[in-house]
């Protein structure tokens, strides 16, 4: 190994390498910086939920180095190890909200995916004529619902729900949430169905299946990834919805975001319990995001590229 090096990189090559290196550096700096921006608030909330008042005031950040983690925040929610067995009204309240959120989000997403997939399939395969509306008009009618801001529906709905005794019920919220995610589901599913060749159904029909039979047994399994993507996206949107929930519910069917928001108004905020609550509210979504990231990206990318 003592031989002298015979082949040298020419100066031009070395300059190239420096450039390549600085390019790498810039890309990674950007990526890491943004990853910190994205993750730090989540980290901050998690650590704050384990802090005591002086730790919060001093702005300590690293557990076990700056401060000793305490279960204070989780205790006030009734979710810490030592309060787990005991009765806790706060925990009951929290679990009720959590259940409300889960039921409403799942039901409305299922409804939206069912209605939306059917409509998207029909629109991608058959030509309709309702009065003056043809396929493209019907598609536009569905997708244009996306533009409708919730505030326009909110007050008429409030009055209608009052008359229909649907205020502060889960069904009322489920209906509105289904409506609000339906255009997105149709958008994704239309893309999905139009990428499936019609020859598949033609073969199935020749073999004696009915249209619905072919749809259920042949097409649905193929379109399943798209449906999962639409479902997850709907789930995220409905879980996070605040505006309608704040207007249309009061005591029985409050969702988690309403609970989180109602705590911030009180004076003398107890940072640790707020942090615990906020973290409990976002935790399911973090799990979904990490595990099902592929589907979410697929869903959002649908329709972007034609």
């Amino acid at each position, binding site marked *: 190994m003592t031989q002298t090096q015979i082949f040298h990189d020419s100066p031009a090559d070395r300059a190239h390498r420096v450039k390549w290196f600085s390019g790498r550096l810039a890309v990674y700096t950007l*990526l890491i910086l943004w990853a910190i921006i994205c993750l730090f*608030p989540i980290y901050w909330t998690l650590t704050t939920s384990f802090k005591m008042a002086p730790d919060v005031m001093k702005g300590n950040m690293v557990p076990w180095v700056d401060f000793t983690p305490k279960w204070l925040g989780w205790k006030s929610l009734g979710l810490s190890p030592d309060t787990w067995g005991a009765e806790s009204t706060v925990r009951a309240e929290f679990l009720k909200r959590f259940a409300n959120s889960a039921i409403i989000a799942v039901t409305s997403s299922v409804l939206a995916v069912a209605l939306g997939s059917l409509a998207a399939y029909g629109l991608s395969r058959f030509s309709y004529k309702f009065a003056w509306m043809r396929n493209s008009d019907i598609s536009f009618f569905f997708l244009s619902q996306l533009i409708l801001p919730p505030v326009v529906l909110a007050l008429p709905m409030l*009055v209608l729900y009052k008359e229909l005794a649907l205020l502060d019920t889960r069904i009322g919220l489920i209906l509105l949430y289904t409506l609000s995610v339906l255009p997105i589901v149709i958008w994704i599913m239309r893309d999905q169905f139009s990428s499936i060749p019609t020859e598949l159904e033609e073969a199935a029909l020749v073999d004696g299946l009915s*249209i619905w039979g072919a749809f259920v047994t042949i097409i649905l399994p193929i379109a399943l990834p798209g449906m999962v993507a639409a479902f997850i996206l709907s789930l995220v949107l409905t879980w996070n919805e605040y505006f309608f929930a704040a207007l249309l519910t009061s005591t029985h069917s409050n969702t988690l975001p309403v609970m989180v928001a109602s705590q911030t108004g009180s004076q003398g905020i107890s940072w640790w319990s707020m942090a615990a609550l906020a973290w409990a509210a976002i935790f399911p979504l*973090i799990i979904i*995001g990490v595990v099902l990231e592929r589907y979410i990206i697929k869903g959002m990318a649908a329709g972007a590229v034609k």
Partner: protein
Amino acid sequence: MSSSGDLLHVVTNDSISASRKTFGRVMIWGSGALMLLVAAAQLLHMTGSAEFGFENWRPTLYTYITWAICLCWGQVLLHGEHGKRTLFVLPAALFVISLTVFPLLFGLIIAFSDWNLSSPDGRSFNGLENVRQMWADPFYWNAMLNMVWYVLAILVEYAIAFALALALNAEIRARKFFRVAFLLPLMLSPVAVSWMIGKSMLEPRFGPIASLGRALGWDDPSFFGSPWIAKATIMVMDAWTFIPFMMIMILAGLQAIPKELHEAAKVDGANGWRAFWEVTFPMMLPVSITAILIRIIFKLKLADIVIAVTSGGPGGATDTVTSFIFREYRDRSNVGYGTLLAMVYLVVIVIAMTLLMKFAERISRPRT
């Protein structure tokens, strides 16, 4: 997507008996008549000219649902196979119509009335009084103007999202980790985000960002003190949640560009900056426009962050139209005025979006 003619050609030979057709018609019209009957009875009950003992409008709702089911079933009875095709779209169409068109029509009535839900007198028609009040309401126009600023902030978001998408599209390690990390803000509920960032991290005394600001030489970091800083803070928080959304759409577009194009550009001597402006950016124009348009639609609904963090303050500087109407209702429970404001907002949005889409179509059309 082609819009004329069935993509799936089905030849059916339906023989529908006359009695089945009659049954179908009777069912649709019968349930429709029942609905109208119940609705009329309820209306009479409401106006007080007859006593039926209704507590709420539920009976009408139930007959409406029955009618909708009968209508769907009737399609199959009347038209056989063709009816079964209609069945794909009809439920969704009925659902959307009953939940948007009907409330919108109802909203039009409310918009021109004076109706305070907390006062006992109920609704009274007051013509254009609400319009006059709106015209003289500086806070509403202020909120509209804020929306323009908020929408303009999308351009910055777009630039950042594009840069991140380019970085993610480069040859990097741990791509999966970065993708998940970048996606997370979109998943979190805006209300929790507004607590995490708006209340906790931006807390002027001990919040980490305030500490950072102090370390960088900002003596008195207050993020919601002056109007413009407050507005910018809201913009940043909203951007934080929604940049992943644009980023993913742009990333999907970037991955769809054929590699050969970059290679050809390289052979032709375009490198780095030039290749970006002359190849990548023009190729990405349609995707970018879709992403920006959808982002604008979402931005126009912005409310939860504002409601939860500043509730419009200081002095309405951060108000969005939605949060303004929300407070208008919360504080004064004035349904009539709030609805009118929302309706005007809808009209403005529809006009603006139509113009924008026309404009977008013009730029994205390939030049000859």
